[in-house]
């Protein structure tokens, strides 16, 4: 399990480092799939609901959302460049620092003994921070959606801590929300592109007041 979470943390850095939108989407999708499989490993006794939710997560995060994003990419004729506000190397460095910091963090927090042993908490922190960095340091709407996805993945990881107490229905609900949100963003992106010929969020600031 720690291996999988470590992989997810690695994918954060991949998403930060890649200069092309499809690869960012791919990294986010792959991370979502990995995390989707985690409930199967965490739950001791087999339950069909867990299997269904895990499967649903993998399907939605790994296939449906990326496909929606790619369609938006195609339909809106977006350049595949990421256009960073913050260069790749600095954002990578920040991501790495966040990961290291997150690894050191559990010592500071009053965690349950069982949780302190796993990479669950550091992984969740690192993913959330990297999601934020992606949100802050990229200009295109699509890459922001990816940042949002990664952020959500981090929160999902946190949620896994409570998997024994949270009703799975809630998890399913969150997943549904996310899908709808991405769906809506995909449509909006398309509309914005048609209306203003740009998806650069730096130029979409006339409604700020």
């Amino acid at each position, binding site marked *: 399990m720690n291996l999988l979470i470590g992989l997810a943390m690695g994918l954060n850095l991949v998403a930060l480092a890649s200069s092309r939108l499809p690869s960012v989407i791919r990294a986010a999708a792959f991370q979502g799939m990995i995390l989707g499989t985690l409930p199967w490993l965490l739950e001791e006794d087999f339950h069909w609901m867990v299997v269904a939710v895990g499967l649903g997560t993998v399907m939605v995060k790994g296939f449906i959302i990326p496909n929606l994003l790619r369609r938006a990419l195609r339909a809106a004729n977006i350049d595949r460049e990421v256009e960073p506000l913050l260069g790749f190397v600095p954002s990578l460095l920040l991501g790495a620092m966040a990961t290291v910091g997150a690894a050191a963090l559990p010592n500071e*927090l009053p965690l349950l003994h069982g949780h302190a042993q796993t990479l669950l908490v550091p992984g969740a922190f690192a993913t959330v921070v990297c999601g934020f960095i992606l*949100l*802050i340091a990229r200009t295109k709407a699509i890459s*922001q959606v990816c940042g949002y996805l990664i952020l959500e993945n981090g929160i999902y990881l946190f949620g896994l801590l409570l998997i024994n107490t949270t009703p799975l229905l809630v998890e399913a609900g969150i997943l549904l929300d996310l899908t709808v949100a991405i769906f809506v963003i995909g449509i909006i992106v398309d509309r914005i592109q048609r209306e203003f010929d740009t998806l650069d969020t*730096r130029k979409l600031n*006339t409604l700020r007041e």
Partner: protein
Amino acid sequence: MTPGWLLLLAGAGLAAGIFSAFKSPRLWLVTTLIGAGAAFAAAVLMLASGVTWDWRPGFVIGGEALHLQLDGLSAFFLVLLSVLGGAGTLYSSEYWSDKAHPDSAPAGRAWWNALLLNMGCVLLCANGLHFLIVWEIFTVCAYFLITRERQRPATRAAGWLYLASSHVAMIFLFAFFALLAARTGSWELGPMRGHPELAPLFWLALIGFGLKAGIFPMHIWLPSAHANAPSHVSAILSGMAIKMGIYGLVRFTGWLPVPPSAGWVVAALGVTSAVLGVAFALGQHDLKRLLAYHSVENIGIILIGLGFAMIAVSHGNAAWGQLALAGGLLHVWNHGLFKALLFLGAGSVLHATGTREMSRLGGLWRAMPWTASLFALGATAIAGLPPLNGFVSEWLVYLGLFDAVSGRGHAAIAAIVAAMALGVTGALALACFVKVCGVVFLGLPRHEIAPHVHECGWRMRLPMLVIGVACVVIGLAPILFWPALATAAAAWQPELANSIPPAPLVTLGAFHLALAALVILAAAFLWRRVRRNGLSRAGTWDCGYAAPTARMQYTAGSFAGIITGWFDWILRPQRHEQPPGGNFPARAGFEEHTPETVLEKIIEPAGSLVLRLSLAVRHLQHGRVQSYIFYLLLGLAALAILAVMGGAK
């Protein structure tokens, strides 16, 4: 009739005036004058009988039961309010007539009545919440009166400054009354000397009421507001509205305990206001601005009296405290009277010539003998010359200070300093009014001002005459007014009650009468000589220069030049000189302007700094989503750090 019915009549008259202000100026004039007269009668009745009128009708307004009270102190101020209100009412019916100001006159009349009504209510309210409400309404009414000529940018700026400073004062008063109510558990006001924990609230009251009273350096709103308001409004502002600040200070230093240093601070503020107020006045070229700075000066004199009375009370030495307090209180009346007279006179000059700029005036006494003589009377009174009322109140303050000197300790030293400052103030005020009277009324006209310079009509003349007579009566027979002073002082501090006039006051009255008789005799003698021998007019000796013009007379700036030179460090006058050069000088010029130093050198830079900082903060709001998320992250991180550090504890 009892004071209650008279006050009801006064309220009804003023309220009826508000409603008739738009339709019928005549009805407005009658009802308002009846209202002012009734208020005057009620106040005099109270002062004469010494019986406090207390009324709890059982109405509840804003959750608090209405409680009105007319005691010695309120009645003392109510007398002044009704006299000045009545005089201003009659004056404005000609000065700000419908014919001259069709747009602003009707609303001006309504605001005028609302102002008088609410100032009266402030004097009567004995409930903190209601006090705040009527105080705020009176402040706002005054704003609308100041901005009657709102088409002029200077007036708008003055109004804005007044409103802003009034609301700063209001914040402090809110804090004062709210804390008072919180600590006593009730909004009811009354004597609460037995609660020493209330003493620190005095500082809030000092700032709140001090801003209203125009104590230096909190006087910043005062000069421009007084200068730009219509003259009858300037008169009531200077005569009464700033006295409301004094009323608040006297009222609450009487009812509440004060910190030990309060008297010293008040006296020090008084000395500062008195000396610097008159110094600033000397630097002014605008007739009404100059008078406004004299309000700062006279507020200072009142505060010297009040401050030393407070020191005396805290030392348990009532004898000289009573004199100082009586002087301060009588100066409230006196300043109200002669300053109103001067503002009404200045209004008459402005009405006739259309300018407040002293350097454009000159030689007006030929055209306006009544205005000139009454203005000169007011000037004599404000300069503190016998035998007029200004000297009586300053004399009482001096007596208090001299008695304090004969004692021991810090109070004696402070009293010496204050007495010297008071003397300097009187001398400078005299210089200043010699300048005003000389430049405006004597000499020759400097400019071809409108050829129809004329004396004002009887409705403007009569109020000035009435106030002038009041000044003379207080000057000649100060004993008559001692019972009123004693009643007011007893309302402030019961142990200061003393119904026997002090001996020096009796002597002073006799001296003034003798002096007045002497002056009249001398005048009659001169008049006879003039009648017998006739007058011959000759040119002023002009050092052999062949072609003198009226422009070569002393100007206001040159007359006061030496004295303002002494105060350059605080006045900071801006001079633009173009001295004549060469054997045949072509052009030369000299221009001097005295800014409002506190406002322009301290308040405005501070304000623009705050504005710059605020604008810098506004850059955070730029519409870039990424940065907003970054702020979010920073906020989260800060919260996390706080949580972790809190957890570590």
